[in-house]
């Protein structure tokens, strides 16, 4: 028992969990490769400086928001629209943080900063379930998370550079449909949630809303559809699971 504990404290133990986190992320890293290549090549097709694309991938590090921003830049949208849309598209990461708070509150601030920077859909989706299965705990989970983050960060920045270079050499690359890799990756993240009625209805309502509200400017449709999906999921969940005490809960919420 004690030896086991000491072993986990060693560098070797840290590397063990980092590797475990990186290995768990492999499916999504593979899905990210075409997506990163496309980001780099789109940026160069839009006539943006290679440094701009590389800075965005290394400093902002936010896959889908980077694409949305590229699209807005191509439309010559004002800077405040680009920044506020990035905020909205990334708002979901607040949930991931909220969910992980219980596993990071004892960690040093420097570790929390790195984890915050690397809190992307893919790493959250790869590492969060490992706490549930007992593969990691609050002493080891952040190491697995850092492993996942580093693997993903390395892939994202490498493919961005390669995409910028190939975008300049192969101009038609943005027509290939490489962004479908993001769609497939997101489907891979969504489907494990679909184990109960509230999540199915959340998905259906968000999907239908996003089609109906597609015409709204500045990605407002995306924000509204997400809010609708969350409300539908939450309301169905509450009405299914707590019919007896739902009255008291509702009155509490009104007061808030």
């Amino acid at each position, binding site marked *: 028992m004690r030896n086991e504990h000491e072993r986990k404290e060693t560098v070797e133990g840290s590397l063990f969990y980092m590797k475990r986190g990186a290995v768990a992320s492999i499916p999504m890293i593979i*899905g990210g490769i075409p997506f990163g290549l496309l980001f780099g090549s789109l940026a160069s097709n839009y006539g943006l*400086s290679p440094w701009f694309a590389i800075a965005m991938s290394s400093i902002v590090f936010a896959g889908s928001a980077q694409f949305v921003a590229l699209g807005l*830049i191509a439309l010559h949208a004002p800077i405040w629209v680009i920044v506020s849309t990035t905020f909205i*598209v990334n708002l979901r990461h607040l949930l991931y*943080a909220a969910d992980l*708070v219980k596993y990071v*509150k004892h960690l040093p*601030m420097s570790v929390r900063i790195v984890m915050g920077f690397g809190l992307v859909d893919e790493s959250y989706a790869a590492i969060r379930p490992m706490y549930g299965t007992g593969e990691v705990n609050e002493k080891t989970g952040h190491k697995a998370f850092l492993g996942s983050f580093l693997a993903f960060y390395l892939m994202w920045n490498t493919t961005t550079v390669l995409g910028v270079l190939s975008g300049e050499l192969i101009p038609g690359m943005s027509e290939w449909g490489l962004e479908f890799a993001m769609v497939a990756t997101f489907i891979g993240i969504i489907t494990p949630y679909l184990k109960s009625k509230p999540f199915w209805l*959340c998905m259906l309502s*968000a999907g239908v809303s996003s089609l109906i509200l597609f015409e709204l400017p500045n990605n407002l449709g995306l924000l509204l559809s997400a809010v609708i999906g969350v409300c539908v999921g939450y309301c169905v969940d509450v009405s299914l699971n707590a019919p007896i005490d739902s009255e008291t809960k509702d009155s509490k919420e009104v007061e808030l």
Partner: protein
Amino acid sequence: MSFFESVVVITGMFLVTFGVRFVLFARAHKVVMPEFVEKALRFVPVAVLTAIITPMILMPTKTLDLSWHNPWLIGGVAAFTTGVWRQNQLLTISVGVVAFFVAKYALNF
């Protein structure tokens, strides 16, 4: 875009992105989530990711396209079916991507 604008865009995007991800971690030892917030937040990934990809799958040319000539729809349906049937992400992503490219290029729709 000028150099100055590029710096402002990247700085702004970094601040909102990192801010959203880090704000709760920064106060992690003090954050107390109301129960209903935590319950509602569980639906955020599904809701947001669905809202991002549904128009991409069903409206690839900005108009609703439910025909089998739409490779996005074929790839999406293939990935979704695989994902619901087998909870295996690598398989879900691979099947979806292969179905998409087969529909787009091999079948020449």
